[in-house]
């Protein structure tokens, strides 16, 4: 804010320019990393045991054939699906299909192209995770800041112990305990799924438990992170200056310290990006909630290569974009980084 007059004299484009060049540079540096990731994914998928062509064939159709007929049929299918080419050729065909044509392959689990249904799964994962994300931040920010301000006092010690308990709780154990309490004993909520086929139970009832597990398992580490960031800020010189000026403690904490403690929160948001769209495999599997994580566990059961490689690529890409988001976020919120004074 101290640079208001300088910034005011710049045109909009001039302000945006460093961001654009920076984002461009980062996206370019992404390309080699992405290439390595695609190679690893492709190799792993092709190391999987089992013949992908055989898995795709309709058993009823092949059962009626003689052995020679079947071998012929398999070979024509193999050529049709492109599995007769070498590994390297197939890798480049896959790259072209994925990145240029935007075709993610044909799923044997659903008998549909992956493009047709993957969007819906991503959307459902996003719905659960954004809710969990909002609730977790709403709780952890005030708790973390209060604990930092009251460092080594009773409240802080309670928070420290509770967060250690929290980071030690496996998410599946929490999920089972919650199911035991709310589904089995109290019978308030449905066990699993996404909607009631009879239409009696409202849809949001199905969201309650997955969101609660996500909040409970992420709360502890978020709170610890925010507490540590706030403690760091409270030891800074400008906080001492603010106090020396005679400002009220409330203003020191909520105006000077709090705003700066939020800077590391950018990192947290960046780290959540993969989970936000990619979902949590364990939570979605326990509650049979059809998001990306559930899709992945289904694909594993059916050895569905198209889904597996698309999902892995998607997760990897999201992590990379999350990292870029963190860097740009720091640029946006921290003037020292924006003006290149601190790297």
């Amino acid at each position, binding site marked *: 804010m101290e640079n208001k007059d300088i910034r005011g004299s710049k045109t909009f484009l001039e302000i945006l320019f460093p961001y654009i060049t920076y984002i461009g540079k980062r996206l370019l540096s992404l390309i080699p990393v992405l290439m390595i990731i695609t190679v690893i994914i492709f190799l792993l998928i092709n190391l999987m045991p089992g013949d992908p062509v055989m898995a795709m064939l309709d058993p009823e159709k092949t059962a009626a054939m003689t052995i020679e007929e079947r071998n012929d049929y398999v070979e024509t299918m193999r050529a049709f699906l492109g599995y007769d080419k070498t590994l390297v050729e197939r890798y480049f065909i896959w790259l072209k299909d994925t990145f240029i044509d935007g075709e993610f392959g044909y799923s044997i689990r659903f008998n549909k192209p992956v493009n047709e249904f993957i969007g819906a799964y991503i959307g459902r994962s996003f719905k659960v995770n954004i809710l969990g994300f909002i609730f977790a931040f709403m709780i952890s920010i005030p708790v973390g800041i209060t604990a930092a301000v009251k460092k080594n006092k009773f409240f802080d010690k309670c928070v420290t112990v509770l967060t250690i308990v929290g980071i030690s709780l496996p998410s*599946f154990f929490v999920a089972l305990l919650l199911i035991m309490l709310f589904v089995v004993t109290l019978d308030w909520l449905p066990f699993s799924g996404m909607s009631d086929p009879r239409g009696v139970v409202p849809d949001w009832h199905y969201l309650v438990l997955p969101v609660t597990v996500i909040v409970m398992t992420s709360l502890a580490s978020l709170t610890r992170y925010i507490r540590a960031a706030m403690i760091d800020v409270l030891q800074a010189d400008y906080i001492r200056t603010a106090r020396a000026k005679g400002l009220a403690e409330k203003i020191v904490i909520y105006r000077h310290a709090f705003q700066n403690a939020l800077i590391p929160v950018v990192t947290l948001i960046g780290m959540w990006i993969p989970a936000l769209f990619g979902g949590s495999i364990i939570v979605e599997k326990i509650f049979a909630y059809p998001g990306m994580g559930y899709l992945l*566990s289904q694909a594993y059961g059916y050895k569905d290569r198209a889904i597996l490689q698309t999902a892995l690529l998607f997760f990897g890409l999201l992590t990379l974009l999350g990292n870029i988001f963190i860097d740009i976020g720091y640029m946006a919120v921290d003037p020292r980084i924006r003006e290149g004074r601190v790297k």
Partner: protein
Amino acid sequence: MSEISKDTKGFSKEDEVILSPTQQIIIKFKCNRLAMFGFWLFAVIVGLVVATHIYTTITGYDFSYTDTSFKNLPPSWEHPFGTDKYGRNTIFRVFEGGWISLQVGFLATFMAVTIGLTMGTIAGYFGGKVDSIIMRFIEVIYSFPFLALAYIISAVFRDKPAEMRLFVIVGILGFLNWTGLARLVRGQILSLREQEFILATKALGIKKRNQMMRHLIPNVLAMVVVSATLSFAGAILLESSLSFLGLSVTEPIPTWGALLSKAAANSTSLRKFWWIWVFPGTMLFLFIMSINLIGEGLREAIDPKAIYTTKEDRKNYKKRRKAEKQAAKAAKVASEGGV
């Protein structure tokens, strides 16, 4: 001279004991009640798990032995943790389940620390091109979602024997978990190598390898130990998630995650046979918590800024707080009386 200092500070020359940093860390750790609780909890659980493993190995206890006359019995004196649907005694399975967790945790952490420390030290010490190559490499590894990758890798090794899959899991865990430590070490080394003592080692003509091994690494070791403790807890948690998803070692070898996953299958087993999943779940939780408590205690103990407390100090501090509170109360009463 000593009399004067005794008068002013309450110390005499004889009281002055110089403690090595390690001794200070041990004292600080021992005086942290929470950390000591974690330490004893850890010791008890490890003791039970190791004792059970030795007992079952010596007596040749068969984990695949089934006896349907003892099917699904609730906890009793004969079967303290009840029995499962094949009539197997759950208590042995719960304690033996920890054996896999311990193995995976130790091996994976050892691997992660070795790779992380080496890579971090090399990146930090040489800087420049070496640094940027290693950092890009870290970025690649960091971009792999752990569970998704574990799915594929366990699909690749699906038909292999259980022991081999265990080593594969250790390999994945160790290989994916070193990046955080490497970043941490690199940051520390970057600032350490600018300091005078490294300049001195260069001036003395000490070999680069020895500069790193003898002078840089010992300076980051305390931090590495803390980080290793926390990644030990993380590795155990991840292993249990994997075995919960059925991607790890499978029947008849018990693991905590796999024992829990049986209950998750349907709500009947969850409600009726609670002892099958509550005991392994609690064990897993307590075990991870004890490691986290130790890690937290170590972190506080190595922090030079932390207040140096002994039991006596704590007592004195409480006494002083009490006196201060009373004084404040008295002052308040006096001021109110004055108004």
